[in-house]
């Protein structure tokens, strides 16, 4: 029972981690809680679904198309909804993100209909046992894809020139611009990367629960954001740890405490962690300057 819940939790947690990374990257660059991220995740799942069901493509190309379309969508959102508001007070950016979330949810409803669509079963459900730890093939696939994407991302951020520019911009936007970094381009690249990861997570969730529906991004987005905050928002490693912690605690909590309070557990952990460490587990304390 415990081990079963643990493997459930890890699969779920790696999905939260993927989504949380998108949040944290965008936050790191423009200090915006991108409320629309959960809905990009939903759109990503729908893009993959469309590619599979309407165009009869195999899984892997559909998956990549889903990620690419979501990346494009992320860039479009950043370009048309967020960039014009960068210079305005922060709350405006915040509301733009909320407006975008509402818009995307309803846009998806208009296109694909409000009802839940069943996602085709592509990976057959086989159960493996590994030293008492039971897991399904799908859970293994989810975990492997998550780890792979996380590795790719950390390679991009740590080793490439673009990654260095991103880290630079997240530390100090003005200084980065003075050093000749095209910060606008960096913002778009960040959105594209974050959205692609979100779409990957959305598709994997759709495969896991075999369902896509327009509101699927809402609570997942909120929880992934909680995961990002727990890890210390702005830190990519933190987001991954936060996601895993959330997934495991949620699965165990739902099994041992009460399944009705499943969603509340995430927020209770969040409040407890923030009360003791206001910047999250991996966050840096920033001194306030006058």
């Amino acid at each position, binding site marked *: 029972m415990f081990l079963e819940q643990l493997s459930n939790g890890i699969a779920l947690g790696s999905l939260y981690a993927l989504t949380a990374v998108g949040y944290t990257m965008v936050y790191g660059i423009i200090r915006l809680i991108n409320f629309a991220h959960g809905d990009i995740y939903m759109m990503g799942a729908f893009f993959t679904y469309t590619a599979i069901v309407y165009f009869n493509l195999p899984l892997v190309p559909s998956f990549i198309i889903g990620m690419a379309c979501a990346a494009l969508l992320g860039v479009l959102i950043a370009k048309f909804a967020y960039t014009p508001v960068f210079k305005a007070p922060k709350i405006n*950016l915040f509301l733009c993100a909320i407006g975008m979330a509402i818009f995307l949810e309803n846009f998806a409803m208009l296109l694909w209909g409000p009802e839940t669509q069943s996602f085709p079963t592509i990976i057959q459900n086989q159960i493996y046992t590994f030293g008492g730890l039971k897991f399904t093939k799908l859970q293994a696939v989810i975990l492997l894809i998550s780890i792979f994407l996380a590795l790719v991302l950390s390679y991009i951020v740590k080793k490439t020139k673009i990654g260095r520019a991103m880290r630079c911009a997240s530390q100090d936007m003005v200084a980065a611009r003075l050093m000749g970094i095209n910060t606008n381009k960096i913002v778009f690249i960040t959105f594209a990367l974050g959205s692609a990861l979100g779409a990957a997570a959305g598709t994997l969730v759709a495969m896991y629960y075999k369902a896509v529906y327009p509101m699927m991004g809402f609570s997942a987005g909120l929880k992934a954001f909680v995961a990002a905050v727990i890890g210390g928002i702005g830190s990519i490693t933190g987001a991954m740890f936060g996601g895993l912690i959330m997934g495991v605690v949620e699965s165990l909590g739902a099994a041992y405490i009460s399944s009705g309070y499943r969603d509340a557990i995430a927020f209770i952990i969040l409040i407890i962690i923030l009360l003791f460490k206001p910047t999250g587990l991996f966050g840096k304390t920033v001194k306030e300057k006058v």
Partner: protein
Amino acid sequence: MGNLIDVLIKLSIATVILYFVIKILSKGFDKITDMIVAMDKEKNRKLIYLIVGILLVLPFLLSRYPYILRTSIMAIMYVVLALSLNFVLGFAGQLSMGHAAFYGIGAYVTALLMVNFNVPFLLAFIASAIVAGIFGFLLGVPTLRLKGDYLAITTIGFGEILRLVLVNWVEVTRGPAGIPGIPSPSFFGFTINNNIGYYYIILLLAFFTVFVSNRLLNSRLGQGFIAVRDDEIAAEAMGINSTYLKILAFVLGAAIAGMAGSFFATFVHYVNPDNFTYMESVTILCMVVLGGLGSIPGVILGAIVLTVLPEALRGIALYRYAIYGLLLILMMINRPGGMINMDRLKGGRKDENSRGSRSNKVLRRSYSSR
């Protein structure tokens, strides 16, 4: 999926129309704001009397249109809710995104007291305000440590936890089934059971809230709030107890939201957890920001517009929330200061783009000033 092009064309048309409507209205709002600023006290008072007079006779004019009367009751209730959030967000500058929780607490306290213990409405009403205020205090305490986005997510968490408690604590709240059969309020033997009566109750509450907001804004305490919002460190250096003020703002906002909740419970005679979701908090937040943060006429206008708009858009039912989202984005791009800008209302800076220079974490420029 087949209707992709159709949907895209319709949404693009909606975007263009919205864009121009906002541009035109924007000019209108500026004119109105300047007019209010230019008015002397005497004229100002006359205008207020006129508005109050219209509001007082309105239900008799509308008594043949129950739908419009009901919508105006809801609009006034949202005015109260938006003004209550304005204490926290507009005055003290704390980004609270769980405001529906206080509203829900107020509604449930009234519902439970009136249904289970036959408590008279007035007592239940006061109890709702007090209980919501206590929760406001509990939520206000973490603000000592948390700022900006962290506070926002904590308040979202608070709202969600409260909703889940309402759903899961079946013995008391009856869970998702909600509490039906909440009696109508009665005062000194008169039972209010028609919409005109409800209209006057909520109007009274709205007048009370506007009065408190207005007096507060011009008082020492209110100036303290504004100082904390604009620059907390500077305010502390001037000897303002920012902790105390922030908690006070939360308690005040929560108590008034609780009153609105109490009214809501008796008005619809039924409460269930779905009325107090995160989206409800977001709606209230949008009203405040769209109307104009901190400006009382702006917030009132914002609440009315955002309540009436979805009703007016019922004709295009499928598209209305997509348009609602578009409206938020376009409005924030074209008119960052809200409909009636507070600075302009004070006769201050005319250029709304310069508004961003505040150093408050929530309200300051996020991108270039770092």
